[in-house]
């Protein structure tokens, strides 16, 4: 199998709910073994897209191929080979950790013996072995999330779809999960991830698309997108809310582009420190200044005129 083969491809993909178009004709291709991201704000159509790819939601228009098959005709066959982590956990809270894994595994045609062994292995993976025979109900949110992810691995999926895998996790749990996902990727599992965390996208994704309002507005690797849509550095000038407008004209020519946010100005420039000095020379007196590298957040702001996370 060629490693650059498209394991999933969408062409002009549309999802309509009644007369509302949630996904408005998107084109994308995911290669075998890569980590592919859908980045976008609330309501962008990420989950709708994920649900179509996971063959749980029929497309309203366009073309879609998953593992070379048409979800409309081969839904069960595709689902047998993928793993789905939904945005909201749907574990059986009245079963134990172990039973959740075993029962779900059986739906994939695994034998009792296979699911018993698999459950042990996956509880180790999710670091829930000590809770194996406890009810799921009282587990913490992060533990439940880990169990949901472990459950999606019960059939050794070739493609793992993760809809906002780390929402609600504390920073430590997030990093732990990133590490696990990275291990899966090294094993050759294709990862598809939605997120509205830029750091997550930058850490995990080889390639990503930025979605907004049901459309793809940009595509590339995190580094490519930053080079294409932002400058090397950003100077952030923080003002008391409202005061930032007065300073805009004084700094406009110091940067390639200036973004006005409710409490700050963002100056996109190749040299942040130089811009800081010159702004000061012109009598601009912000509460604080910060020079940082551009991130996907800046890409998103550029593309949509909005911040991704408030």
């Amino acid at each position, binding site marked *: 199998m060629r490693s650059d083969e498209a394991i999933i491809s969408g062409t002009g993909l549309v999802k309509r709910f009644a007369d509302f178009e949630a996904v408005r004709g998107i084109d994308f291709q995911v290669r075998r*073994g890569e980590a592919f991201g859908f980045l976008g704000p609330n309501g962008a159509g990420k989950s709708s897209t994920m649900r179509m790819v996971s063959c*749980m939601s029929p497309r309203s228009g366009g073309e879609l191929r998953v593992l070379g098959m048409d979800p409309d005709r081969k839904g*069960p066959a595709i*689902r047998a080979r993928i793993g789905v982590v939904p945005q909201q956990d749907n574990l*059986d809270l009245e079963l134990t950790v172990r039973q959740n894994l075993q029962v779900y595994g*059986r*739906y994939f045609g695994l034998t009792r013996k296979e699911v018993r062994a698999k459950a042990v292995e996956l509880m180790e993976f999710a670091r829930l072995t000590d809770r194996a025979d406890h009810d799921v109900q009282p587990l913490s949110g992060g533990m439940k999330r880990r169990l949901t992810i472990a459950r999606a691995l019960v059939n050794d999926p070739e493609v793992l779809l993760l809809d906002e895998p780390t929402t609600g996790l504390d920073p430590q749990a997030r990093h732990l999960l990133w590490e696990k996902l990275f291990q899966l990727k*090294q*094993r050759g599992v294709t990862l598809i991830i939605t997120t509205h965390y830029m750091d997550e996208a930058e850490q995990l994704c080889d390639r990503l698309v930025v979605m907004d309002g049901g459309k793809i507005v940009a595509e590339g690797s995190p580094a490519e997108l930053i080079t294409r849509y932002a400058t090397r550095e950003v100077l952030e000038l923080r003002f008391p809310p409202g005061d930032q407008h007065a300073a805009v004209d004084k700094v406009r020519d110091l940067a390639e582009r200036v973004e006005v946010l409710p409490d700050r100005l963002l100056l996109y420039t190749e040299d942040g420190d130089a811009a800081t000095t010159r702004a000061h020379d012109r009598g601009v007196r912000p509460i604080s200044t910060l020079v940082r590298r551009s991130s996907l957040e800046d890409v998103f702001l550029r593309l949509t005129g909005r911040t991704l996370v408030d």
Partner: protein
Amino acid sequence: MTATLDRPTAAATGSVVGAWRAVWLRVEGRWTWYRRHWTASLLASGLQPVLFLAAMGIGFGSQVRPGPLTDGVPYLAYVAPTILVSGLITVGVTEAGLPVLSGFKWKQDYWAVASSPVSSGQLFGAELVWIALRLTFGAAVYLVVAAVAGGWTSAGALLVPPIAILAGVACAAPVMAFAATTKGDGHVFAAVNRFVVMPMTLFAGTFFPVERLPLPVRPLAWISPLWHGNELVRGAALGGLRWWPALGHLAVLVALLVVGIALGRRAFQRRLVV
């Protein structure tokens, strides 16, 4: 790390199982849940008809003298078959209501199934089979208890459980379809119980003949599935069942089941595949 992670990429281990096996695997999942929580639902599925038998057949029945109203048999023998039908219909409708809505809405385990190779139609089938199994268990317990109490007068009693289970499942199927289309928080099922199941239990020939009802309301009893079930079981247990009416009653129950299955499969598909 673990063994999973050391292995090179391999094909996924999941596969699509045959339709009936898929149904069975889901039933097995239900059984796993039931083993853990059976005490909570025992009263509903197993004992409810038995309690009715004790109260109405044995308690109240001791005050009723055999006569034309009871086809000439003791009241216990008169109501033993019909109480099972009415009890299983009540349990079937209850299990088909709120628990099914919960599968979509609160427990949400149906969504987990939807992401596996098991289809929405197979899920529906499994939930119905699961209800049928619960009813079978209740019927078996009842058969024995009623025998000990002296409620059976002939070998025809052995036909009572299968007929009662059919009636219960036939009522459960359309209610499952209804539950799958319900968006609210399930108060509607209390109304179903109050305005459909309860009156049916009281007036569809379970405790006294429908002929005692005022003529204008009698058709209401005739269109109820419970009445058809009652006519069948009473005829089977006490004798006197004639072929053509029997086939007619059976046809009504089977038709209800078939329509319920068709509607239920469609409703599950519409709710899950969006």
